[in-house]
């Protein structure tokens, strides 16, 4: 009963704030509404007793990505810059595509929802299980290789920056780089 009410509140919040995020004219407000959506999603995870997912959602999306979003908006926009929305064939076609995607996703979800439901048993996941799943190398235990690949990508990015960087001339090294 209480769970249902909370679920409806969260679902309503997600729906309303998603629409607001898309329709808001100020980009910083859009970012804030998106943040609310992410937080409400985290609330849904909490409702399902997925505590780890909840914390990761809050840390990574709300705390990390959104901060990056807002920072980049700070750096790129003048205060109060507004978007001019025009109705064009692009908008119409993308709206059509969005509706089509929604229908497809809805069909898949409705078809699979009973199967998905059987996985949710409401018990809190053990941290040890999570850890072995992440670090293990057996079937369905894939996170470690995934992370290794991301480290490799990071190394690639740093290498690219190093290559792209201007060659230091030995005669006048930039000041303040030594310490």
């Amino acid at each position, binding site marked *: *009963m*209480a769970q249902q009410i909370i679920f409806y509140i969260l679902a309503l919040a997600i729906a309303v704030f998603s629409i607001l995020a898309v329709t808001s004219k*100020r980009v*910083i*407000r859009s970012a*804030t509404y998106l*943040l609310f959506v992410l937080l409400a999603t985290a609330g849904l995870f909490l409702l399902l007793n997925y*505590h*780890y997912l*909840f*914390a*990761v959602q*809050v*840390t990574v999306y*709300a*705390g*990390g990505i*959104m*901060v990056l979003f*807002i*920072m980049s908006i*700070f750096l790129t926009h003048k*205060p*109060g810059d507004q978007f001019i929305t025009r109705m064009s064939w692009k908008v119409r076609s993308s709206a059509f595509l969005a509706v089509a995607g929604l229908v497809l996703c809805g069909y898949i979800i409705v078809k699979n929802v009973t199967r998905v439901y059987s996985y949710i048993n409401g018990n*809190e*996941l*053990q*941290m040890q299980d999570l850890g072995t799943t992440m670090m293990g190398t057996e079937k369905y235990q894939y996170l470690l290789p995934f992370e290794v690949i991301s480290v490799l990508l990071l190394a690639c990015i740093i290498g690219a920056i190093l290559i792209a960087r201007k060659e230091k001339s030995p005669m006048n090294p930039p000041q303040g780089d030594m310490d």
Partner: protein
Amino acid sequence: MNYSQPLELTGIISTLDTFFRNNLTPFWATFIEGALILIAILAAYAIIALALIYIERKITAFFQSRLGPNRLGKYGVIQSIADMVKILIKEIIQINDVDKFLFYAAPFFVIISSVLTFGAIPFGMGLQAVDFKIGIIYVIAASSLGVIGVLLAGWSSNNKYSMIGAMRSGAQFVSYELSAAFSLMTIVVLSGTMQLSEIVENQRYAWNLFNGHIPAMIAFVIYLISGHAETNRGPFDLPEAEGELTAGYHTEYSGLQFGFFYLAEYLNMFIIAAVATTVFLGGWMPIQIKGLDAFNQVMWYIPSYVWFFAKTGVLIFLSLWVRWSFPRMRIDLLLNLEWKYLLPINLVNILLMVLMVLAGWTLSDWFPGLFAIAP
């Protein structure tokens, strides 16, 4: 072994719980208990903030060989209450050209993130409102929300000083949160759990600080430094460097809204110290020595919350000591410290801790008769 604990609050709490469970339907019992816990947390939040403001002002004065507030009550103990009364009824200025929604929402982000983190702290035996299995990640997650409030406050104020202050704050928060989280993870490796209550239980005979000796101590120091920087205090308070940025991101806030920022700043100091206490210094667990039952009994007579607040108080004092010892850092030096020193050291430190745990070089592995919980 069961020690007698005459002053603990667990008895009262369980009596209340059974009373509600027996007399009400489960839904209403949960509801009322939740409401009570909420009220208790908010009250504790306010009281601790007021006490901290007084203590900070007094200790600051002592460090500068002054007396500090001493005209209200004995030794000025009710000074912060006067401040509270004033700030509650001070005018909240309606500023025309701000982004109203974000401007009014920003203080709530800061205070809510602070309260959420506050709720997860184990204050004593059975005095913990939220005890997730992933307690440490929860603490990191909840405290990471505060930075958004700061950024939005700076942006929506329509003031260049707020904006620059918010940018600095944001950069500082985000970078130092990284090393704070990493140093906590070092201890997670050591104790093998993320649940705060279990971490406290595991430190019954040896605090994590000593159990993990060298890496734990490095992690402890790094956590204190980065936690200190996260709260925008001490040598790291340049987001509000007054000479240049007026009051940083909360320049345009007045009255109660400013009070929220002010309160959250002090409470974050407490939260950092409390998490450090819980994770490194054994939390509310009294000092115990394996085998010495009489000594342990004496230690248990002192209630757990007293232990907790004493340890936290020591760390808060340390934070104030640092604050009044060092001059303010420049922003590039600040980020240098984080990215060139704290973070690399931290990463090596985690590796060191993993190796130590795998090789069995912790104190409880070396001297299981003295420090290990299980025989």
